């Protein structure tokens, strides 16, 4: 009842993850030719796009999650009726 509706916002974490995320995208776009060469090789190199996708999703996914939290857009407090 005395619980505050304001929770601490992960601003620092968002900025940190945001910077790493931007760094990843800068690398991706600045090294296009090299990336295309290796990622398009196929065969064993198939692991490259998969691992990259997981890495980006973790870093950028955490960032986007915190981004909305910092903006104050969070899940409804009243729990939905789900079985």
């Amino acid at each position, binding site marked *: 009842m005395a619980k505050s509706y304001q929770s601490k916002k992960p601003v620092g974490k968002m900025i940190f993850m945001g910077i790493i995320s931007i760094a990843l995208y800068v690398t*991706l776009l600045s090294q296009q030719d090299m990336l295309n060469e290796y990622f398009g090789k196929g*065969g064993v190199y198939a692991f490259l*796009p*998969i691992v990259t996708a*997981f890495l980006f*999703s973790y870093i950028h996914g955490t960032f986007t999650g915190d981004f909305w939290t910092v903006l104050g857009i*969070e899940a409804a407090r*009243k729990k*939905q009726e*789900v079985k």
Partner: protein
Amino acid sequence: MHDTVNAVANFINLDTANIIYLFLVGFVGGLVSGFIGSGGAFVLTPAMMSMGVPGLVAVASNMCHKFPKALIGAIKRAKYGQVDVKLGIVLGISAEAGVLYGAHIQESIKKSFGEAGSNLYVSAAFVVILAVVGGFILIDAWKTYKSGNAHEEEKVTKLARWVQSVNIPGTMVYFKSIDAKVSVLFTLPLGFATGMLAATIAVGGFIGVPSMIYVLGAPSLMASATELVIAFVMGLGGSFKFAMHGLVDIRLAMIILAGSLFGIQLGAIGTTYVKPFMIKVVMGVIMVTVLFSRALMVPVYMSQLHLIQELSEGTAKSLKNVSFGIMIFALAMGAFIVLRAMWQGRKAERLLHTSEALGHGKV
């Protein structure tokens, strides 16, 4: 090796306009899939192709953005208690088999009837499935809305009650979303059909989600969240298969992912604010709108196959443009309904808290 060299040569040059475009379409696609469990692919693949990306590279790159997106969406919605991981994995594995079989059918149609034949098959599948399933979902959502029971828990269909009552020893598995034991002999064909549709029109969820709701008896919120697990399992396997042939353009996939991860987080949050039948509304509206888009393309392909009188180049081109425009409209409309419902939900929640606080004499 020869294929690989070709594939690399097929990776297009990206300019800023293309990057922004992919980011935005990714965002809207992510928003919708965070909400209904899938969607976006039917716009993303043709959007990439319109930039000059070859069809297979577009499909492969789309899939490589889909599985990490679905993973993030599934994790988010699992926090809200909406995901049935076991059901998602069971359906996902059989969906994988459906994808492989669906791709095989696509190849043989392409061999026998050429590109136009394969396009006609895809469009016909779109029109028939979206008309039947999309129409059914919309009618159901409309009935719920009219009956004024939108707040109540959803009723389990007769079919689902029957499916839950069938006991085939040795095949029964308990699923928490259904809160009952169901024979995997029922889930296998459903997963398979989901995968086949995913291989055909890129959006397996249009079968996956309704079958979980109406055939298995899962609540809409859980069905749409669980679809994300299916999409992850299916997308991971599919991406790997395409990557083995060097077809994934990682730049395209990651740029779309950049936008769609913003979207999917927001879409997932949105589900906690709306009444469950809104999932059906969004899904039904998108399905029926996309149906019109594909129906317009049917005469184009039929004329290419000389099944009807040949259309003039101008007519074919304008039909194509209108068809693509309607698809973008369908996605935008889905996103609009999600955002609007979320906005209203948040407003209602704020009002509730204010009145509660007033009630407690805190303000």
